[in-house]
């Protein structure tokens, strides 16, 4: 299938255009802003699907804005990892649909158009981030998505929201600066900003600056990905944000760190400027630590969203561990978990949002017995919980299976052990959650009287829960889709 090359720009420009016009459209009625944002995202989704279809068909392709040739203009490059755009669009659409009722309930009316604008900007930033092939452009898109992310955390105006957002902002900004420093260093070494070009010119560069640049970049992305012990901004921010935002932040925004890491690896492996053994070892250990510590903290949470936030740290741990293993199965598992975790975590956060919307309660203690009142929502949450633990045939299984295989394959059975027991730990607190929803006697009998979530919330939740199952059964499709990219990634180091 051939796709008109400038479509690659459209996938970023359409949501930006939609975002800047959202306040105009929503000027008179807030609902109009929701419609507009939804329309924008649907259009973007169509574009994204065309692009994914093309990459599935003919491999990576690129487009240079303004018609310049490669190192001079900004290259947008769509490879298999960029297929994350499809998930971004999907979650974007669902989050916007979900927000329809939620935003009216949770936000002051005047903020709603800006809320949607920021949501679109956040999505646009992620879309741009995942398709750009230029280091500085990467930074710019990263800032769009970070800035809108900080604001979205605070948008609800609850008392600790601003403080959570500020903490997030400070850590996010420091990490962005670190990444920019690294980009500047790579530029000074190579004179180029295009990733492929940088990779090809890094060969003879002095080792110390390259190592420090890679290190700083990795550190920056690790903060964005919230890897233990750089995770301290995450729980508050993700728990306090409005639920559709939490779904986006937890499902997608932390993955930006992972995609950035993948880009870093692409440069590093191709250039062969450096042996990455040290970085890989650090990633494996931090991944294992994240899994365990995330799960450990999650067990003690009573607040549902806080628990989900800690669970994100665990799951990012899986992904990072997979990347660090640097074996084919591990990296494939990690890349696919980027997609699957997005779907699963969105299911859970949107589900939790629906519970909060209907009951006004957010702790397990208060929500006890809600399963009888909101059967569909809680059933979807249960599906999400099963998936995130990684029980077949749900979405979480195959990725974890692959990461574990990768660990054995790379000769680190200990990490397979850590992974499986991490999953067990995760299982325990999700069982605690589902147990409370179904089997604990309600603290306040009024909870049995609440109604099921409205359609605009229930539909996205059920769609996502269904996807959790479908992605589990059809798990080999994303795996075989991502495989060529991983093979290409690992080829220079003799893996794959």
């Amino acid at each position, binding site marked *: 299938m051939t796709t008109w090359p400038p479509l690659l720009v459209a996938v970023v420009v359409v949501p930006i255009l939609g975002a800047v016009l959202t306040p105009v459209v929503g000027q008179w009625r807030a609902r109009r802003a929701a419609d507009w944002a939804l329309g924008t995202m649907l259009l973007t989704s169509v574009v994204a699907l065309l692009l994914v279809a093309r990459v599935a068909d003919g491999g990576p392709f690129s487009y240079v804005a303004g018609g310049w040739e490669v190192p001079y203009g900004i290259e947008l490059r769509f490879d298999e990892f960029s297929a994350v755009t499809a998930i971004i669009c999907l979650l974007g659409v669902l989050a916007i649909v979900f927000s329809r009722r939620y935003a009216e309930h949770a936000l002051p009316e005047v903020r709603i158009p800006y809320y949607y604008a920021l949501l679109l900007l956040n999505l646009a930033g992620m879309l741009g981030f995942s398709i750009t092939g230029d280091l500085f452009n990467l930074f710019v898109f990263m800032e769009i998505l970070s800035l809108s992310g900080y604001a979205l955390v605070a948008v609800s105006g609850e008392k600790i929201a601003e*403080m959570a957002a500020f903490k997030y902002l400070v850590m996010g*900004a420091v990490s962005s600066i670190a990444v*920019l420093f690294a980009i500047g260093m790579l530029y000074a070494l190579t004179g180029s900003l295009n990733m492929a070009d940088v990779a090809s010119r890094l060969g003879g560069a002095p080792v110390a600056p390259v190592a420090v640049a890679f290190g700083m970049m990795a550190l920056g992305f690790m903060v964005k990905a919230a890897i233990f012990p750089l995770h301290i901004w995450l729980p508050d921010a993700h728990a306090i944000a409005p639920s559709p935002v939490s779904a986006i932040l937890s499902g997608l925004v932390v993955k930006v760190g992972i995609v950035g890491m993948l880009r870093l690896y692409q440069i590093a492996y191709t250039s062969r400027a450096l042996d990455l053994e040290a970085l890989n070892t650090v990633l494996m250990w931090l991944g294992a630590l994240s899994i365990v510590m995330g799960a450990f903290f999650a067990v003690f949470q009573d607040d549902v969203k806080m628990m989900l936030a800690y669970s994100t740290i665990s799951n990012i741990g899986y992904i990072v561990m997979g990347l660090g293993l640097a074996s084919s199965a591990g990296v494939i598992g990690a890349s696919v978990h980027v997609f699957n975790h997005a779907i699963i975590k969105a299911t859970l956060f949107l589900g939790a949002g629906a519970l909060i919307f209907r009951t006004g309660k957010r702790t397990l203690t208060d929500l006890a017995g809600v399963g009888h009142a909101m059967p569909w929502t809680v059933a979807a949450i249960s599906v999400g919980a099963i998936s995130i633990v990684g029980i077949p045939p749900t979405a979480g299984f195959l990725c974890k299976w692959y990461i574990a295989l990768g660990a054995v394959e790379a000769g680190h059975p200990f990490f397979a052990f850590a992974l499986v027991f991490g999953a067990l730990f995760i299982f325990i607190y999700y069982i605690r959650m589902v147990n409370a929803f179904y089997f604990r006697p309600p603290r306040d009998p009024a909870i049995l009287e609440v109604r099921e979530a409205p359609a605009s919330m229930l539909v996205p939740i059920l769609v996502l829960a269904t996807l959790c199952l479908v992605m589990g059964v059809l798990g080999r499709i994303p795996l075989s889709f991502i495989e060529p990219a991983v093979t290409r990634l690992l080829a220079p180091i003799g893996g794959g």
Partner: protein
Amino acid sequence: MIAALWHNIDYAACVVLFCIGLYTVITKHNLIKKFMGLNIMETAVFAFIVATGVVEGGNAPIMGPGVEPPFINPLPQALILTGIVVAVSTTALALGLVIRIWHQCGTIEADELREAE
């Protein structure tokens, strides 16, 4: 090593500035001061990147009659223009948040805020 560092003393100055900024971010409790530290870090990185574009004895890269090479590298300057805007935007949002925190909690000292929480 020291000789090489002496040659790149401009870069080293940026590193020092960067660390001053980091020190401020870590140790200051006042949210605005914290953010000023962040701005110092940003400035350090901007200065670093602009410095990579310097050519000894170069002219401003504006073409026209009577200007001669060598020119200063225009690319880092262009990047940093963007970078500055990004930094300004972050600052604006940070200040907005600080205003709200002040309204809600009556303080912008991180340690007092932690107690209030």
